[in-house]
């Protein structure tokens, strides 16, 4: 009985829902009874979910703002598409799945390498400075792919991509989403994730507690970039051509909007927000044509500003607490304070809000201490 009570089913809701969705749509997809609009929507949603979850790892859990997520995706998309084209030429048709897997791996690893490269400045820089470096990185990557000679990556026209398994690609996409979620979630819910969140809360204390900040920052940037690369490869398989303009700074912002909307530090939130925004994007594209298309951007901007102000404004704190669903629910439930539950079962309560003022302040550079007058030198 007690064993049954201890089942932490809440942890697995997201997986169950995702698997159910995959099976449901997969079933119809295999029967070819889904229309093109739905499959495109599902493909896009899968890409967006992977991107949002992987960005949340950096923004929500490490507490560093990255504005270059589309750059990692760009690396993945280009190299994945290139690999797929090359492999198709040499292996011929019939090996679609193998080619897809190899391309995914190549794209992911290439993006992960870039993640290490961008993780290095992250060791020295924080907050706003790091944000601008990641933004710069995204632009550098894009402009390099755009301006390399046409023979390499197709120049400004874009890299030719292969479109495989048109109707079933979304199934693979959803499987990738589940894998991404599982790996990132497991990472966060382990001792390593705890180390990462401790760095977010207080880097100085984390160091003093013996956490290897360097290692964990690099690790987080690498993992996040790897999955962005995977998303890029998946994206390239949905396109006829991978075009450099796709991955501009606005795309990074769109991913960030998903993370902010879903709640920084909440993976389930990221999933929901990614789904919602992708769906809205598609629907609004149909509804708002011509000049009205601008309204979409306007709405996003407004929602983003209002949401962030509502969630963070110090003046609204009292109101927020009154209106929060959690507190309203708590009123309904009778709470027995004498009973202490272990938080073992509530791993989903990984803190979701960054309120510490110092998290993003640029002034902090604990790793490069004030240089004393004469630097101490190692005794020979």
């Amino acid at each position, binding site marked *: 009985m007690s064993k049954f009570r201890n089942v932490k089913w809440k942890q697995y809701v997201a997986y169950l829902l995702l698997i159910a969705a995959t099976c449901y749509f997969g079933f119809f997809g295999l029967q070819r009874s889904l229309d093109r609009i739905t499959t495109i929507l599902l493909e896009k949603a899968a890409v967006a979910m992977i991107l949002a979850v992987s960005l949340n790892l950096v923004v929500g859990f490490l*507490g560093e703002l990255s504005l270059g997520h589309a750059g990692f995706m760009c690396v993945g998309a280009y190299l994945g598409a290139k690999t797929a084209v090359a492999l198709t030429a040499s292996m011929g048709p019939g090996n679609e799945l193998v080619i897809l897997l190899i391309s995914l791996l190549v794209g992911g690893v290439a993006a992960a390498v870039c993640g290490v490269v961008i993780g290095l400045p992250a060791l020295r820089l924080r907050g706003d400075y790091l944000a*601008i470096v990641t933004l710069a*990185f995204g632009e550098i990557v894009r402009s*390099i792919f755009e301006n390399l000679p046409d023979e390499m990556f197709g120049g400004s026209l874009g890299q030719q991509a292969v479109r495989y398994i048109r109707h079933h690609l979304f199934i693979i996409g959803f499987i990738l989403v589940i894998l991404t979620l599982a790996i990132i979630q497991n990472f966060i819910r382990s001792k390593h994730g705890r180390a990462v969140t401790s760095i977010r809360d207080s880097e100085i204390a984390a160091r003093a507690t013996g956490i290897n900040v360097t290692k964990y920052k690099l690790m987080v940037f690498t993992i996040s970039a790897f999955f962005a690369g995977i998303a890029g490869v998946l994206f390239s398989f949905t396109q006829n051509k991978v075009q450099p303009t796709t991955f501009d700074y606005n795309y990074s912002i769109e991913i*960030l909007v998903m993370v902010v909307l879903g709640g920084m530090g909440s993976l389930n939130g990221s999933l929901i927000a990614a789904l919602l925004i992708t769906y809205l994007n598609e629907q609004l594209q149909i509804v708002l044509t011509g000049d009205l298309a601008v309204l979409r951007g*306007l709405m996003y901007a407004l929602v983003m500003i209002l949401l962030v102000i509502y969630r963070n404004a110090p003046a609204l704190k009292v109101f927020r607490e009154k209106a929060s669903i959690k507190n309203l629910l708590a009123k309904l439930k009778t709470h027995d304070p004498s009973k202490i539950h272990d938080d073992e079962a509530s791993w989903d309560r990984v803190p979701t809000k960054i309120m510490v003022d110092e998290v*993003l*302040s640029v002034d902090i*550079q604990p790793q*490069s201490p004030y240089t004393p007058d004469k630097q101490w030198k190692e005794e020979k």
Partner: protein
Amino acid sequence: MKFLETLLNGLSSGSTYAMIALGYTMVYGIAKMLNFAHGDVIMVGGYTLFVTAMTMGMHPLVALLLAVICCAILGVTIEKLAYKPLRGASPLAVLITAIGMSYLLQSMAQMIFGSADRMVRLFDLGKINIGSFRISAYTVVTLSCSAVIMVALSLFVKYTRIGRAMIAVSEDKAAAQLMGINVNFIITITFAIGSALAAFAGFFMVLKSPPVNSTLGAMPGIKAFTAAVIGGIGSIPGAMLGGILMGVVESFAQTSPVIAPFTVAIEFSILIVILLVRPSGILGKKRREKV
């Protein structure tokens, strides 16, 4: 001769960047936030020039004055509506709001003016001959105007009551408040000045190339922002230095057909390298947290 011409071109576009970078840097120094929407204030300035000078047919200088006023009001409004409620909240929240604001301005402009370019032709500036040496009058105008503005700004910050109050607020907001400085007023003034500078930058930009669209300010904004960070954000001379450096690098990179396409990549790489060597920029103050 070619070298000198490239250098002068670089200096003139660099001083435009410097003008924008000053806005970023002043706001950062006082409000400790990156005003991502700053680049889009330039765009609003450009459209104001279009409405006043082209549609209503005003004299370009009157149009400039109106653009400056308009941008200053816009800057203050943005601060009051979006940033002020978040004072004291996490810097990440403020940064994200600023990004949202930038988006909002762009889409609003697109809604009002459409996505097509609007042409703003103010003056017909020719070329000036000095002996065998020909430079465009645009370069001369930009350089001299921005030099005057920057000197005026430095003097303002150094010698006026408000300027000194600005320095005090940037050093320590709480202490400044205790000394009777109205911090809110100082922040408002800073946003107003920064946005007014953005209007000037917009003016110079349309002098150089007439088309105005909703993303007019986006790229120069990001570049100027980079320039401010390179120079050391929060430092006024740093912003000038960073801006000029940016302009000169850009101008020289564009003379070679092989390198030209990679100009943006080079500029941003410089940023990354400089930040790695000096994490707080060239002239930035190094601060550390007390343990």
